[in-house]
């Protein structure tokens, strides 16, 4: 069965195919964004009686270290360069077989052997 095409038809099919992929993906983005919105709306709001509770004393301020990139923003680095921190996080995620975005690192401190 020979289905030789002329170049014009091929060009139309190619453009149409690429457009369909984009259209399908665009609709999918819409659906996923919608899903995200609905899910975030369903998250339980902070409990109302909380106001009645005794106020919890604020924790003592901790000297802030430099914030590492690629984390939730609250990762404190003590004597650890950014690059090493990124590497450590990747290794921990790999060893634990847990995706990096499911892990939260609080701080990374270099321990010097004496």
């Amino acid at each position, binding site marked *: *069965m*020979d*289905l*030789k*095409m002329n*170049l014009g038809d*091929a*060009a139309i*099919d*190619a*453009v149409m*195919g*690429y457009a*369909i*992929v*984009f259209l*399908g*993906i*665009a*609709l*999918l*983005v819409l*659906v*996923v*964004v919608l*899903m*995200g919105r609905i*899910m975030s709306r*369903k*998250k339980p709001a902070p409990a109302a009686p909380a106001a009645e509770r005794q106020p919890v004393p604020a924790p003592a301020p901790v000297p802030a270290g430099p914030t590492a*990139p*690629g*984390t*939730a*923003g609250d990762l404190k680095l003590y004597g650890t*360069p*950014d*690059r090493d921190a*990124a590497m450590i*996080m*990747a290794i921990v995620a790999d060893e634990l077989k847990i*995706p*990096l*975005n*499911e892990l939260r690192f609080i701080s990374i401190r270099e321990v010097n052997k004496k």
Partner: protein
Amino acid sequence: MNNILETLKKLWMESGFMGFFENGGWKSFIMIIVALALLYLGIKKKFEPLLLVGIAFGTLLTNLPGAGLYHMEMWDAYVYECPYDAANEAILYDVEEERVLSVEEYMASLPEDAQEPEIIEKLSFTDIAHIGGLLDILYIGVKAGIYPCLIFIGVGAMTDFGPLIANPKSFFLGAAAQFGVFFAFFGAVLLGFNGNQAASIGIIGGADGPTAILTCMLLAPALLGPIAIAAYSYMALIPMIQPPIMRALTTEKERSVKMEQLREVSKTEKIVFPILVAGFVILLLPSTAPLIGCLMFGNLLRETGVTERLSDVAQNALMNIVTLFLGISVGATTVAARFLTVNTLKIVLLGLIAFCFSTVGGLLVGKLMYKLSGGKINPLIGAAGVSAVPMAARVAQVEGQKANPSNFLLMHAMGPNVAGVIGSAIAAGFLIKVFGA
């Protein structure tokens, strides 16, 4: 003494070695050298070894004269739906005139020393399992489209769609990186391939082995061997193909952009995602059902949290078993008479073009997103839109760190990377829909 010599002569004449000296036997010899080269690439250079070693060994086995493990003519008879002579391993089909021969015509064309014909009117998988060789039987899994789909269950079980759900804009990079598919499709038509063949060649640019195999098997099964080999070889070569294109199309400033941390994705979102995507994409493009359905089923097994055993089997045992069968049976299709043609060289060239232009497509849309976001998106993650998970994402990470050592793009690149799997499945679905029977 005469008897001994006669026996030795007979043994020699019937041995596979003699096959190398018969009509076209030298081609088998060349294919054995090709198989050894592929084994070298798989074992020594570690080019996608899990698949390439299997493909290479299948190539070796199928081209050993007299082994009879795979029968190309039998599969031709199955494809053309014409009668097959099992005794003489011939089909009742005139390729030049493109018509089925009558039994009388066939009998008249048989040489005098031919065996008594044993004609099967229309081959079924049962017939093939009955009269075929070992590789014919394993190849049924490819022909029926089972292996690529089972592999997609494993891929789904191994994929974390979290980065994609956290940043749905990544989807567009996965779509953009399908540019090479349609560019190579057009190029293939330009080089004289018909629509079905061009579509099968183009899908190499999706950088997704199972998708390429399924599309090719449905549209142009005769090209399966070269297409699978090209697809897997280029996937292994991504760390060499992509970086020069990435550096050529982006500036140092763009490459050094550090991206913001992704939001946390809840477990419920991860569970709903595969159900939603499967339902939506399949309804939109029903021809994607086998690929998207299996991919999302595998992912659901991973995310439910109550099917850990099944997820484990899909990721490991099932994936390994199917990879084993798929590799060796795809390799079996590289019969010398079909593989050593100018078309194979064209496919290898078009495959490379497809990969390069897919990378270009992803990068260009990445640059557009960089502009639109005010410099917040690193365009390098666009190159990860070619599926090849996770190789392409790793390349983006490496290139990003070269430009800025504190850059950590891996998780950001995983979004477009897994979006590329969905994008290539949609591209394949479109091509199957347009060119499929």
